[in-house]
């Protein structure tokens, strides 16, 4: 039916995210934690993630400006963000975080800047896709939303 169709679409969308490397296994672990007791757990976590990552990225940008070449500081900020990304399975973002940290290690300012831009792009992409995904899930109906998407 309609619901099942929507659910299928959602599942397919999710699969796409995995295939493209935006999400990794950790996301599935998070999904596993969703159950009757917390039926919207995944979405809640994702919401928290984007809120927090916005803030962290913003802080990072300001730090890049305010503390030039303060690689330790930058690295510390990035570590925070990396932690969030890895907790939710935001794979591409996490990779950018790691590259950024590598650049910090090498003292490469341009490299850091470049990574940050890429990170912001990945962040935006992921957000948009997950938003669509959850929207689809919601449309698929409460039942659809509550059950773990079939992958």
């Amino acid at each position, binding site marked *: 039916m309609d619901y099942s169709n929507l659910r299928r679409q959602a599942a397919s969308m999710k699969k796409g995210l995995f295939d493209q490397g935006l999400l990794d296994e950790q996301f599935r*672990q998070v999904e596993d934690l969703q159950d009757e007791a917390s039926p919207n757990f995944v979405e809640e976590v994702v919401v928290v993630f984007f809120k927090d990552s916005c803030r962290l990225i913003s802080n990072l*940008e300001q730090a890049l400006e305010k503390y030039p070449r303060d690689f330790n500081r930058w690295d510390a900020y990035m570590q925070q963000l990396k932690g969030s990304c890895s907790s939710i399975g935001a794979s591409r973002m996490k990779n950018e975080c790691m590259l950024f940290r590598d650049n910090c290690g090498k003292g490469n300012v341009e490299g850091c800047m470049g990574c940050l831009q890429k990170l912001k792009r990945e962040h935006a992409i992921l957000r948009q896709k997950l938003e669509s995904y959850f929207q689809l899930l919601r449309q698929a109906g409460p039942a659809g939303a509550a059950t773990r998407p079939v992958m």
Partner: protein
Amino acid sequence: MMRQEERKGVTAAAAGRDQFPVGMRVLAVDDDPVCLKVLETLLRRCQYHVTTTNQAVIALRMLRENRDMFDLVISDVHMPDMDGFKLLELVGLEMDLPVIMLSVNGETKTVMKGITHGACDYLLKPVRIEELRNIWQHVVRRKFSTRECVNLDTYEECNKPPSADSDYVYGQVSCGSPDQNGRPSKKRKEYHSEEEDEDDDSNVPDNDDPSAPKRPRVVWSVELHRKFVAAVNHLGIDKAVPKRILELMNVEKLTRENVASHLQKYRLYLRRLSAVASQQAGIVAALGGRDPFLRMDAFEGLQGYQAFTSPAALSSFSAHGLLGSPRNNQAAVVIQGMPASRSIHTGSGSCTANNSIGDANKYHLSLPGNQHGNLAQGLGTSLGQAQLQHKWMNEDSGDLSTILSGNSLANGMPRTLQSVTSSPLLPQDLVECTQAKVAILPSIRAPSASLELLEGAVGASSGPLESHVSQQSALPLSGFSASRLPVHGSFNNSGATRLGDAFSASFRPTNGLTVARGAKVGAGSFGGMIDLTPDTEQKYWSFGSGNSLRQKAHESSADSLLDPKLAWSSSQLPSNVGAHQSISQRANNSSINIGHGARMFGQTSVSASPAVPQTKMDFLFSGDTSAPRNASESSIPRLQTELSSSTCSFDGLLSSMIKVEKDDVAFGDDLGCDFYSLGACI
């Protein structure tokens, strides 16, 4: 196992304690909301009862208000309001709860730091549920080890074969050879009985139930002794009077007389330790494990040490070093306590082996004064006292200044090793040593290494120690020693500087372990947790495994002086330094109790069990004894200052720790989120 008050909201319907681990109460601390949320849910999925907070200060407050409210703490390493390691130290010190560290950063040195600070385990983010399902073991282990050996009777039990807990969770340590176990236990027994005889006290605080004295005698368990040392350090060895100590310790049914008598022994122990200074090399080596050069010296030192330190002292040291020493906790205590207290302070980062170092060739193992009662005894007996005397006697420094001088150690006094190891534990000494002059023994090359070893050992020692010491407990001490070993590290011999660095950086004589005069080895710093540089990881391991290393004399290279293993396993260390190495090697192989060690240490085979509670050591007193960080600075003086000064209160300690935490990166500013409007976010 655990008695808990009624819990609310336990996910599993279980009664909690009765169905432990179901309902185990966990406090999760992480400033990252995403991680915290996921972690919370994971823990609930494991049927634990979870409380979360994103601020370490809040966590600390909750814990202080009622330490019985939780069974286990999981904390992130990087938090803006307080460094995770500080929290770790404080929790270990004040509440004696197992703490698991979490981090995105899995670098060995960071993991090592966690271990040396006393973490039971170190998990990498993202955390998987499988890992969390096993964390309850830390709680059990700790309880088990705390309870063990509380009494003389239990000593024997404890000493028995690789204690169950040793193998328990972490099971990695392979040092549980019966041999090792047997030995320590024997020592412990001896010590214990010695102590018993001398100790007339009737209160018994730490029997199975710390708060419910059941026996007439006071059993100075590791835990109790640790508290004692912490109190002494807090007050300053000179100002520590039984009445005040008693107040600080706050142990039911402990009388002033008990404390007074224990204090007397402790003082003697410290005096003896300081006399031993020359052994350091050997000891350090032992601790440092890796570096052969230390070993040699360490051995010598150890020998001297042994002789020197009263049996008690030595025993304590050895206990430490070996962590595994029968005294499970005792050992831990030893290390922590750096009974040598002042002199030993090695730990205090100040490895300022100033005085001791002066002796240069003597490595003062600065047996951690701790040993005070049990420990010292342990040490003493184990070490050939006579031998130690020579070596250990550190002439100028009354303090034990870790007998880092490896020279003497080289002789491989097996016994001394023990003591040495124990002393190495006294991070303080080590610290001092490294700082001061690690150069003392040119042979001691790798002070830093040793430190690491020490650290490793410390943590790792749990491994070898494990046999004796319940892993958990052992670890703390070991960890302590390991880290503290810095003292060894300070050996600065040319090569030794490493250790020194290691120590300095990490050495955090958290406890007031007043580094022995020379601040030599931070033995004192047991509490301080010497953050040995990661390189020494290996060392650490060896350290811990020192116990097991026993006298493997194999590589007499002086380098190993610092070999924590050696140090720790002092008892085991064969007279030659080589033994140290062996120890270290062992350590490497045996994953020192660190249960999850695999993760943590990665490299060093010895996975310093996260349990390395060092942090618990009382050392925390010193506000931030991270003095060691600065290589050989006068950390000692600083330490002492810190120790005696205001850092008395935990709060003060905390703040000083926070302040001092150099490693912390200021996460600082929250610049606000301009980047994306909230609305833009999902």
